[in-house]
């Protein structure tokens, strides 16, 4: 067992669990702030902290565990009813929780040490003075000088000892392992067979143990049963060895060694000769090894004893598992024997020297259990209590999605093939069968798609849950009262989308709380309630998910926005003049613009809104802004709900096929030629009292240069598409049909071509480019 690797694994496993627990603590602690008497909550918080401490310490995070202990104490007192949780304590606890997270980072300890010390000090104020960190770790027993002791042990287990799952014989064996033991069982308590209750223990044991181990070690054997059992231990130092040996202890040992080696040699050849398990032979061998070892220890010859220990362990494992004596094991035993022989020889030759011995004690591999006859023991029945969820490697899921996606496109080949069979080869029966098979596969593919999409879908709650804390912190830091309302937390989004909108949403909510909501005094003066409201709403609309960030704060001032933009040279005076209110509000999306009074350390550096919009755009979504001076602002983000398969409209322009993503198409119309007007270089269309700028796809993607202008057809097919700012009409040659496509990104080299979102392979194998409307206009 590689200890270092094991410890690394433990640390990694713990980090994963800790991340979940810390996230849960965030929300639990906030809930606790509003319901400090809730016993269930208190217990939950306590348990989470307790687990972090316990498992963390076992995984090796000692500093973290020591620090967490203080927080645990606070909540222990609270759940016992000896202390009431106040907002100040929650503040501290949240701080502590953040520090715990940092302590888990590799090399995270030093940086946060001063902060931790501060928190501990602050926590101590809340705890009653008599509460000291309970560290009644028993003092490590001092190792007596290795002197032989003679222990006289009497052990009578409690008659009901079996009911605690204890087998007293195990303890006797443990004593045997400590040295040279003579065991006598006392059977006088055993009744006649008629009255004997097999579940009761009637036995007692006398053990005489000769061991270098001190009495403390002997007592340790009985720690689990000492309370209920009768145990008497008398220990006396063993008088020095008999005169003969005292004269030459080494000679005495070598004598025993000689005898033992001879016996071992005999058994070894017997063992090697057998082809199947001979447990009796193994037992004898083991017995000799043990006696030899005891003698070695008796004489203070630790080195041979250690070598023997390895051999003993090897055999013990074999015997316990009752496995066949493998050839490997026999080899090990033989090698061990050789090593012993060498050692004894060198002992004979010179006086004992410990150095150089380590090299002879090469690590011997442990026996791997190989069942002698591996008869299957029957399929293990599945646990009745199924796991609530399974963690899946994201990579595996991605691969699965990819294959499924390709299936969804490949299935489109069937109708085409069927048609071919009928029309080109006159095989109508065949054609129908192919079509039916194709339909069947199509249904299955649809089910598969739905199931897979739902796997990747996660409730937006996972992103929303960080906001209550954030809003609270901002409110407290700025002396404002801000209320956060969350709606539609169960709305589901693809996991990747959720990951990508997290940052933009953080920015928007921060803005709302920081810049949007005014101080309570200002609000009161304006006749508003003192507490400002920030609402975060998510809902499904057709194929899209709509997220709104709404605040009832001060709103944005178009005039000030224009002024700032002018000051920063982002627009010309002429443009500023011509701008209406709606356009002025759009200025906030310009990089570098901020009208914050002062840059707070939370937001206000002017890098925000443009990044938000571009991030959302990368997800093929749109961002729109509404605001009323004094009334508040609302930012609406619209995102396609799924990344995998998109529905689109196949169109033709200039003999090429293109796909419009369905979620961006507002309407498809056919207008008579005379509703298209020209103004300078641009075209416009009027439709239902709205004017749309028009651009022609054919012009945009002209495949060869043409002279002059193409005439407009009698009826113009117009796709009205929505971009962030406006609606634009895109004229195509004709609409073909609805399609379902998997949009594949075009590759790095084409990343700059903003007009396309990607490409897709149609059912017949041809490639069609998928248009990104925002990139067209």
């Amino acid at each position, binding site marked *: *067992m590689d*200890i270092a690797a*094991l410890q690394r*694994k*433990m640390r990694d*496993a*713990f980090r*994963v*669990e*800790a991340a979940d627990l810390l996230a849960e603590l965030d929300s639990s602690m906030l809930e606790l702030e509003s319901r400090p008497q809730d016993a269930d909550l208190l217990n939950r918080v306590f*348990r989470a902290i*307790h*687990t972090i401490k*316990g*498992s963390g*310490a*076992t*995984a090796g995070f000692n500093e973290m*565990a020591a620090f967490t202990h203080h927080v645990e104490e606070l909540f222990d007192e609270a759940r016992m009813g000896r202390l009431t949780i106040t907002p100040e304590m929650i503040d501290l606890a949240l701080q502590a929780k953040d520090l715990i997270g940092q302590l888990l980072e590799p090399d995270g300890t030093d940086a946060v040490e001063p902060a931790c010390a501060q928190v501990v000090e602050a926590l101590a104020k809340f705890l009653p003075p008599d509460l000291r960190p*309970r*560290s*009644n*770790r028993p003092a490590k027993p001092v190792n007596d000088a290795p002197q032989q002791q003679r222990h006289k042990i009497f052990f009578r287990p409690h008659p009901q000892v*079996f*009911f*605690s*799952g*204890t*087998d007293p014989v*195990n303890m006797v*064996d*443990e004593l045997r392992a400590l040295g040279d033991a003579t065991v006598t069982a006392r059977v006088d308590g055993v009744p006649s067979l008629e009255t004997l209750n097999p*579940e009761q223990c009637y036995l007692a044991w006398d053990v005489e143990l000769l061991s270098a181990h001190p009495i403390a070690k002997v007592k340790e054997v009985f*720690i*689990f049963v000492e*309370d*209920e059992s009768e145990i008497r231990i008398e220990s006396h130092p063993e008088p020095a060895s008999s005169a003969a040996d005292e004269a030459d202890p080494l000679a005495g040992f070598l004598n025993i060694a000689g005898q033992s080696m001879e016996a071992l040699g005999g058994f070894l050849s017997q063992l090697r000769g057998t082809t199947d398990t001979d447990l009796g032979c193994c037992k004898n061998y083991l017995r000799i090894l043990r006696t030899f070892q005891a003698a070695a220890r008796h004489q203070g010859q630790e080195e041979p004893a250690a070598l023997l220990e390895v051999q003993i362990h090897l055999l013990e*494992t074999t015997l*316990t*598992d*009752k496995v066949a004596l493998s050839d490997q094991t026999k080899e090990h035993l033989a090698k061990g024997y050789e090593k012993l022989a060498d050692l004894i020889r060198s002992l004979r030759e010179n006086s004992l020297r410990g150095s150089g011995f380590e090299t002879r004690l090469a690590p011997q591999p*442990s026996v*791997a*259990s190989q*069942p002698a006859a591996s008869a299957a023991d029957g399929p*293990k*029945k*599945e*646990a*009745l*209590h199924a796991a609530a969820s399974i963690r899946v490697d994201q990579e595996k899921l991605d691969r699965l999605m990819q294959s499924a996606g390709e299936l969804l496109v490949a299935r489109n080949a069937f109708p085409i093939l069927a048609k071919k069979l009928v029309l080109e080869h006159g095989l109508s029966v065949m054609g129908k069968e192919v079509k039916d098979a194709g339909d069947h596969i199509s249904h299955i593919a649809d089910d598969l798609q739905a199931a897979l999409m739902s796997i990747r879908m996660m409730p937006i709650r996972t992103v929303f849950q960080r906001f209550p804390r954030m809003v609270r912190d901002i409110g407290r830091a700025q002396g404002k009262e801000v209320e956060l309302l969350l709606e539609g937390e169960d709305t589901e989004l693809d996991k990747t989308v959720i990951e990508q909108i997290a940052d933009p949403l953080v920015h928007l909510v921060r803005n709302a709380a920081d810049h949007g909501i005014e101080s309570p005094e200002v609000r009161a003066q304006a006749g508003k309630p003192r507490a400002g409201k920030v609402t975060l709403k998510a809902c499904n609309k057709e194929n899209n998910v709509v997220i709104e960030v709404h605040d009832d704060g001060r709103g944005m001032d178009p005039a000030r926005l224009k002024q700032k933009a002018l000051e920063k040279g982002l627009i010309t005076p002429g443009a500023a003049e011509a701008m209406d209110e709606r356009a002025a509000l759009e200025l906030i999306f310009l990089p570098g613009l901020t009208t914050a009074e002062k840059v707070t350390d939370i937001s206000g550096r002017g890098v925000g809104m443009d990044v938000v919009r571009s991030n959302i755009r990368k997800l093929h979504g749109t961002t729109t802004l509404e605001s009323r001076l004094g009334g508040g602002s609302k930012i609406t983000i619209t995102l396609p709900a799924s990344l995998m398969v998109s529905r689109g409209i196949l169109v033709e322009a200039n003999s090429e096929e293109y796909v419009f993503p369905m979620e961006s198409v507002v309407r498809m119309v056919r207008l008579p030629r005379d509703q298209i007007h020209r103004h300078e270089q641009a075209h416009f269309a009027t439709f239902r009292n709205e004017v749309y700028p028009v651009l022609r796809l054919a012009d945009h993607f002209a495949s060869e240069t043409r002279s002059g202008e193409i005439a407009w057809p009698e009826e113009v097919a117009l796709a009205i598409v929505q971009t962030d700012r406006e609606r634009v009409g895109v004229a195509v040659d004709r609409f073909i049909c609805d399609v379902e496509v998997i949009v594949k990104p075009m590759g790095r080299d084409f990343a700059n071509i903003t007009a396309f979102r990607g490409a897709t392979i149609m059912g017949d194998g041809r490639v069609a480019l998928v248009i990104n409307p925002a990139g067209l206009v």
Partner: protein
Amino acid sequence: MAKTIMVVDDSSSMRQMVNFTLAGAGYQVVEAQDGLDSLAKSSAQKVDLFITDLNMPNMDGIQLTRRLRAMAPYRFTPIVLLTTESQHEKKMEGKAAGATGWIVKPFQIEQLLAVVKKVCP
């Protein structure tokens, strides 16, 4: 044949750590996340040793011990409780419920192996 040890703890990292350690020493390990889970799984397969935490949702370690002792196959099976230093009363309660022994958290790998060897050699 290798012995089967069931480790019961609501902390997944603790379960994993015990699992690695014991599996590396040649035991078969089964994990359960609380008392209820453990009862369900142990009625479906033979367990030679239980190692269980005390604080768990749904059913704690002491209750689990009592329930196991009431099951015919597990009346005499070793059950070891994972306790913390400050839980002395719990140790007594555990004994009364029929537990075999305990290991104090946090523990070193060697300590875990020593106790396992002691109660389930």
